[in-house]
């Protein structure tokens, strides 16, 4: 019986070794995602056509931020985006200038990134995103992505509505 007990002890101590070794950590490596605190726009906010978007957020990372990106696309008819055809989209190039517009109202799309390298905490506040005057009104998604210098990424989604001013 004693030998059995000693064997159990052996088994348990081996088990302990296995589990203790699981506590090893690659501490030097950054796997912590940056934190996005998106203040404006808020969920279900109504953004007006022809106006600038009041965009405000705080970004922080435990080591170093990388960059952030804002992406807006439509969410017409929930997940069924089939209603549009023959579109001539607004050309909203990287410098945010509208280069072409059509009388027909077309969905608005936006995709732009900003560099944050060298920073650990930033407060972002700008009005660089402009909703074109005749953007198709309706539901949109606004997504803010942020990476840190190591490539850890976090993102926040806002359901927004684009509507005319009147």
């Amino acid at each position: 019986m004693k030998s059995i007990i000693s064997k159990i002890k052996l088994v348990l101590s081996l088990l302990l070794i296995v589990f203790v070794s699981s506590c090893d950590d690659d501490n030097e490596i950054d796997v912590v995602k940056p934190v996005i605190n998106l203040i404006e726009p808020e969920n279900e906010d109504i953004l007006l056509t022809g106006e600038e978007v009041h965009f405000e957020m705080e970004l922080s990372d435990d080591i170093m931020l990388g960059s952030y990106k804002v992406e807006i696309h439509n969410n017409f008819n929930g997940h069924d985006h089939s209603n549009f055809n023959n579109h001539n989209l607004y050309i909203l190039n990287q410098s945010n200038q509208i280069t072409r517009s059509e009388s027909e109202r077309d969905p608005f799309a936006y995709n732009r990134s900003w560099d944050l390298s060298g920073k650990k905490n930033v407060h972002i506040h700008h009005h660089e995103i402009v909703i074109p005057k005749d953007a198709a009104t309706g539901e949109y998604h606004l997504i803010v992505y942020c990476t840190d210098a190591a490539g850890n990424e976090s993102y926040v989604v806002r359901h927004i509505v684009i509507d005319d001013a009147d």
Partner: protein
Amino acid sequence: MYLRIRVCIAILIFISLHNLYADTISNIFLNEVIVKDSFLDTKKKTTVQSMEIIAKNYIQKRFSGNIINSIEDVAGVHSMDIGSGFSKPVIRGMAFNRIAVVENNIKQEGQQWGADHGLEIDALNVENITIHKGPGALLYGSDAMGGVIEINEKVIPFEDIFFGEFFAAAKSVNESVGASLMIGLKKNNWYSQLRYTEHRFGDYKIPTDTIIYLTQKIPIYNGRLKNTAGKENNISWLLKYRKERTSLQLQISDVYQKTGFFPGAHGIPDLSRVEDDGDSRNIDYPYSFVNHLKAIINGKYSFDNVIFSADVSFQNNHREEISLFHSHYPGQTAPQKDPDKELEFRLNTYQSIMKGVILSGDNVRHTIGVDVQSQNNEIGGYSFLLPQYDRVTLGGFIIGEYKLSSTLNLQGGVRYDIGRIRAEGYDDKYLYEYLISQGYESSMADNYQTRSYDVDKSYKSLSGAVGISWIPFNNHSFKFNIGRSFRLPGVNELASNGVHHGTFRHEQGDPNIKQEEGWQFDFSYDYTGEYIGFSVSPFLNRYSNYIYLRPTGEWSVLPHAGQIYRYTGCKAMLVGGELTGYLKLPMNFRYELAADYVYTRNEDEKLPLAFSPQPALRQTLSFEKSGFNIYVQSHIIGVQKRIARNEDITKSASLWHGGVSYELPFKKYKAELILSARNIFNVRYYNHLSFYRKMEIPEPGRSFNLMLKIPFKAKI
């Protein structure tokens, strides 16, 4: 009688020694259950590789919807759950194309590269399973580098008999009901078996009323994950002829699975889409179905000193994902035919293996073989994920097995493989137009519109393994193995470029990516005493090239995408082990323990690899007496803090499972009634390997499973 069994066992020891994996000839001797069990035990001891043999009874007792869930109690094996009822296997931290599932010598070929694709096998049509935890590249080539789950050939009754089995199961967590009927007939040299299985299940229950995904609070109505209902219909027919030196077998099987996707996790969550539709059993959009048709012929002829065998097979895996037509780029309109068919894959696989086993005396045996496989994937649907491709591989191998003494066995072999993969490029013109309209340069739009690169690559690889098993004393056995194995890159790793609709990442292949290669070492020590037994099996795998999805830090310009993730090779290490033990206690009580741990490391980035399993510890206390069995199991899942970039830490959990089974006399047969409960305390926990993990969707809550098995037979 005793002597006869011993002689039989002795023969089987010899035969099993010469059987690296399953071989039909050995089953000829398996007419008595007692012998069979001993045979399996002996096989386990003398085979040089670490392996676990799981009996049918065990699989059925632990049955909870699919084959992987039934075997995940085995130390070192984890299940990667797809949600709904489907899972895929993970062995020692390796999954996807790194694990081969083999039935009748033929590797199952589905869409195993996909994180949201399950395994198309009827769990109830499986008799015994052998799990090889080390590399199986020697016999199965590419894809078997992480391990092999081998579905053993069916044991054929010795006498002429008509027999069958009826199995029914119900499960509370998703209100599933299933039944399976098998009938078999053995007459002279012929044997035939037919099985039909059907399951239907509703939306599964999770112990929460809200999940948080992409910082959005998503309500879970009635504690059910909407639209995770599904169904499964399987049919399988086996015909076997055996006479003297000849054995011929044909097995045709078809597995059909259809299941819904939780709409809140398919794209950006929209609250309107997760609202209760009042029906927990309907399969609404989006959903997927898969049909896997498989036909395998195994032939074998034994000369005096040579056993020749040939395995020929055809598999068709047809998968479709159906989601109401949507496009992120204007201009694309719904197709006339099948407007809601988002993705379609039709994968045809032809495989043939020829083997000659040369016996030289009692103690030496050589196997020479050739393995040819040809694959072709056709695609359809309004969306794009994987290109059309074909893949041909040819491998030749030689394996030597030597019984050096009554206690020492040596096995070794080499294998050479060549392979060619050709993928057809694919451009998305709607995407191009969209990007141009957004003001991007045409060169940039051109790069992004290529959803799949043109690939035509050839590979060659030399792999090999050598191992010993040493049984110095009756109850002690040692095994040591060194192997070198490889894996050809998957088509997704070579050719893809674009947003993966399931992971919501821009995933980019690399047409010049190198094949995976690595060395594997494993050791095991087994002690099997009358009252106590345990085994320790540590392993170390080092890969000179291991493919992973690397976050690049470069923003994708595509809608719905953050940074680009690129398939990249790295040096990697996986180290860990399993510990199992049993203790026979007084009064028919028995205690069992199974623990496993894997440490993974991407040596280039000094980071853990993604999808590293959480450590697990299972302790089971059972009582068995005259057909009555009761068990209670404590299942502790450790925290996974060692995460790759953009994974989340998965917390630890402590679960309790239990069950009762009783063999009740039913006419002259013994019917078996099994009642089991999983996650008795309805603990909310997460599985680091689950497809739904990143959406913070917890694992299923408490479930009661009820099973009834009625065997029947009649002599003819």
